[in-house]
């Protein structure tokens, strides 16, 4: 149980709670909230020294943000 692990779990829980029930409820807020559990998972991976997985996760989560932005942008107004 190292500090990264505990911190990661805290961020994971906060993040998934607020991105499951965003407030105010719109797509932009939910998309921003989605970043928090991502960074939490990154810390959990860090605590197990899974550097390559962490790295790939960083890149891929940015890409998935882009994909979701593309959908939301086409669906204006938010």
């Amino acid at each position, binding site marked *: 149980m190292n500090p990264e692990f505990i911190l990661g779990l805290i*961020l994971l829980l906060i993040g998934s709670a607020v991105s499951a029930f965003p*407030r105010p409820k719109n797509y932009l807020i939910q998309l921003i909230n989605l*970043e*928090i559990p991502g960074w939490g998972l990154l810390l959990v991976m860090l605590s197990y020294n899974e550097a390559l997985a*962490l*790295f790939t996760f960083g890149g891929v*989560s940015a890409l998935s943000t882009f994909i979701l*932005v593309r959908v939301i942008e086409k669906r204006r107004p938010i």
Partner: protein
Amino acid sequence: MDSLLVVIFGFIAVIGALTTAFNREPYIKLISMSMMIGGIFPFIVDRGFLDVAAATAVIAPISTIFILLICRKGEP
């Protein structure tokens, strides 16, 4: 890492996450998220994964710029 430093950086990350989570303004959320990421970086560097840290530092703002595309432009 020293336990004092762990507490401080953990505090920055958690307080950043909480502000990101419970604020209602998109811009303030993005600023707080940047703060949270600042708290997380020392942990990555402390493990000695310098290449991962450098690349992640470049990727994080790109992700923010993607999100800025849908923040309403010119509107506080």
